[in-house]
Structure formats: structure tokens, C-alpha cells
């Protein structure tokens, strides 16, 4: 899958989870950049991404991923 398509679909997920139509994610995007993205919402986000792409993150990845770019790398390796 191309990067562009992945980021498109991610945008949909993010907008849905955080209820904000204006979100556009980039590789450098971190939890600091999105207002409601705290440790509580993180899991919801992760699960939503898993469902969107039909993949599973393992717990280690969940707790250590630093930005959207890392998330995308994992998605690409799983598809």
C-alpha cells in the first residue's frame, strides 16, 4: 500500500476518534500535537487503527511508538 493511501485512511481514523474534522497527520505528528491525545485516548486510537487496517499492534509497540511515522512503519510491515 502506498504511503499516501495509508495517511488518507489514518486521517479518517484520527478525525473520528478525536471528533475533529480538521486533523491532518504527518510522520512527525505526536500526542503533543493533538489536543485530546493522552494516555487514555491512546488505546482507543490504537484499536481504531487496528480495526481500520486489519492488523494488530503488540503491547510493546503500543507503549513505545513515538509518533505517527513509527505507527505507519508498523502498519506497512503488517499488511
Amino acid at each position: 500500500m502506498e504511503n499516501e493511501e495509508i495517511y488518507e485512511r489514518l486521517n479518517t481514523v484520527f478525525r473520528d476518534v478525536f471528533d475533529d474534522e480538521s486533523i491532518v497527520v504527518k510522520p512527525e505528528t505526536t500526542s503533543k500535537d493533538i489536543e485530546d491525545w493522552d494516555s487514555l485516548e491512546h488505546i482507543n486510537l490504537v484499536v481504531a487503527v487496528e480495526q481500520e487496517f486489519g492488523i494488530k499492534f503488540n503491547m510493546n509497540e503500543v507503549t513505545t511508538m513515538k509518533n505517527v511515522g513509527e505507527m505507519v512503519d508498523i502498519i506497512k510491515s503488517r499488511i
Partner: protein
Amino acid sequence: MNLTSLVFLMFCIIVLGIYFISPKKFQWFILLISSIIFLFWNNLSISTIIQALVVLLTSYVFGILIDKYHDSTKKSKIFLIIGILIILGQLICLKYTNLFSITINHILKLFHIDFKLELLHFNSLVGISYYSLIMISYLVDIYRGACKSQRNIFKCALFMSYFPILTSGPFIRYNNIEKELYGKHKFNYDSMCRGLVRTLWGVFKVLVISQRIGMFVDTVYGDLATYTGFYTIIAVLFFTLQLYSNFSGSIDIIMGISEIMGIHLPENFSAPFFSKTITEFWRNWHITLGAWLRDYIFYPLLKSNFMQKLNKKCKKIFGKKIGKKIPLYLSMLIMWILIGIWHGGAYTYIIGSGLLQFLFIFLEDTLEPISNKINNKLGIRKEVFSYKLYQVIRTYLLFSFAMIFFRASSVGNAIEIIKNMFVWNPWVLLDNKSIYTAGLDVYDFRILIISLITLFVVDKLSRTGSVREKLSKQNIIFRWGMLYILIFAIIIFGCYGVGYNPVGFIYENF
């Protein structure tokens, strides 16, 4: 070993001396011997040796097994679960049997059954609540592939018993500390200076502030009939500071020592009392405990099938916004009850550092939209200093209230204390006399106020970067002046020696 005792001072001097004289490849082994001595100090018996061996052997053996069967998730999962159960089991047996007994006794009393379970007392090792959870995290991390198992049983033993963390933590993670813990460390003058300054600051917080406040709090709480009203209110507010200076002071002491040896431990505090909400507070207070619970309980719980199914159902019934909150709050409630239990096998802890904290966070979250509406209607601005001040004070008061339970000897005792606060006696504060009759005289109060202001200033400065860094940039006269003041403040105003009964390290009993 008391962190501010002469014994510990001697211990550190000897250990540091041998550590830096030894050939670097044996340094970790020196640490192991020192840690074993610290672990079993004044507590060497067949029972304690067995306790330690159970946890060590379980972690070591199952760690290797989980690693070995990495490819077969089923097998490695079984080993993981057995390993966790054994470690958890010994922790529960040694620390929480009384909780069961107390609960059952209450139930029996409720049904007027004349039978009481005897409360047992087990001699557990110092740091059991820390190393048990740390070794569980070790096994889980191996399972998750975050680190590899340690094949050398002695090195594994060092990770489990590293003496700086035995008294009050912090919770360490294997993959973060592995390199430095077993590494080679050359003596570094700057590290020694920086470490010493941090340790001294910790000693100051413990001996000058925490012990001093303790004298007042103990007096007031020790005689509820005499000390009521404003005495109680001040004691409640003071206890929070006692807890903070005691706990963060102990952390500073051991972080400094560990830093001298070249082993950097994760921070546990980040000026928590400048937090504006209880939610924010717990991101800055006992940080490593929060991180442990988040990574090993909260996330796995939230991500579990059960919670996800619940999530879907709730979203269907209550709508997306409210629906997604329900599994969240449920997981949080479970987590907070566990935090409460971790602090101690008594209901005072479960309420004080468990249920009440959950309640505050829950209310903060659910009431936020309403409070925003009200603020908008009333024209109250949230970015201004006065509002932030209100938030900080409110957070402090909420936390102090919860700590009434934490400090009380029982729930009934806590309720008595709360009732005591409602006695009207403002003259206690105003007559310039009475307040000095509750364990601290006017001199002690003066020193305490000055010390607390110092603590406040240092913590405020720390929010914009390391205070030690800032200090090191100043000129030598100022730097040395500050150091001499710190050292002599400890020597002159420290509560040690005859006439002072040391209030124990609050977090040492975990």
C-alpha cells in the same frame, strides 16, 4: 536501613570507595554484594532468604523459558502467566493476607458471627512491593519482545535487588537500565558533585522539612481530643507536604548516589504541586508507578477483548461520546483500586490513594464540559494567573483530603479527623501562642516556613530545567555559598539525634 542514618552513610562511602577502586568489569558484582547486604540488613533469616530466592529463581528461569519459546506464543504465554502468578502470589501472601482477614472479620461482625480471623505478621524484605512488580514487568517485557532475558543469574539478581531502589523505588525497566547497570564506570568528578548535591538536597527535605512536619502532625493526630479545628486543618495540609518531602527526598538521596555510580534512574516527581488538576497531578507524582500501571495493567486491560466488546456495546447504547468513556472509567477504577491496594493492605489506602483519586479524576473529566459552560456564561477566563492559582490550590486541597485516609490508622480514625476539622477555633492561629504548643515551637515554625519557601522556589525553578544545571552556571562564590548553606542547614536544623524520634520513611513499608 534508614536513608538518613549514619549506618547508611558509612555503607555508601564504603560501597562507593570499593566500587571505584575495583576493576571496572567487576563493578556490577560489587553492586550485587552491596545490594544483598542492604536487602538482608537486620533481616537475615531462613524465611527472608527463601522469599528472595523464590522471586529470583522464578524471574530467572521463567525469563529464559519465555525467551526460548518466543516463537510459540502459547507456550511462552503459559510460562509468563505461571511466572507472574508465583511472584504475585508471594507478594499477596506476604503483604495482603491481613487484608483478607480484616475484610472477612468485618463481614462476620456484620452477621453477628462471633469468630475472628487472627491477623498474621510476616517478616517481608525491604522493597518487596517494588522488586515484585519490577520482576513481573521484566517477564512481561521479555514476552513482548522489549528485551531479552538475562542469562547470568547473578546479573539477574542485581537487577532485582539494586539497593538504591529498595527503599522507595523508582520502578525501573530492564531495557532502560541494562546497559548502565552492568556497565563499566569510570570515576567522574562532575557526576560525583552533581550526585552529591542531589543527595544533600534529599537529606535536607527529609531531615529539615519532613521530620519537622512529622512532629506537628504526629502530635495533633495522636491526641484528637485536645487538638481540633484549625490544629487539625493545618495538620491535614501539612501532612501532604510531609509526605512529599519525605518521599521525594528519599528519591533524591538514592538518585544522587546512583548517579555518582553512573547509573541513571527514571524520575519519580516533577514539581507535582504546580499541577492544575488531579489528573495532571498523577502525571507528576510517583511517575514510575503510574507508568508501570499504565503499561502493564491499564493498556492491556483497555485493549482486551472484553473491554473492546464493552466499548462497542456502550457506544451502541449510549452513543459514541459517552459510550467510549464507560470501559475507560471501568478500567481506571480497577487500576486505582490496585494502586490503593499496592500502597497497603488496609482500606485507608484503598480509599485514600485509590477510590478518592479515581473519584476526583472521574469528576474532573465528566464535569469539564459543564464547568466550561459555566465559566463562559460567567465570563471567567481560564488562562489567567488567578484561575490557575485557584486550580493549583484546589488540587492541593483535594489531594490533602484524600491523604487524611492515607495517614489515618483506620477508616473510623479518618472520619474522626474529618469531624475534628469542623470545630471552630480560629484563635489557635491568631493568638500567636497556641499553634506553638502542638509539637513545634516558634523557632521550628520559622525554620519550617523558610524551608518550605525554599522547596517551593526550587520546585518552581525545576519546571524550566534542571536546578543543578542552573546552579552550575553561577559563579563559584554563589555556588559554594548555596552548598554551605544547604549543608549547615542540615547539620544545625536537621531533626536528628537525641530528642527526635525519627518518623519512618513513609514509602519504605511498601
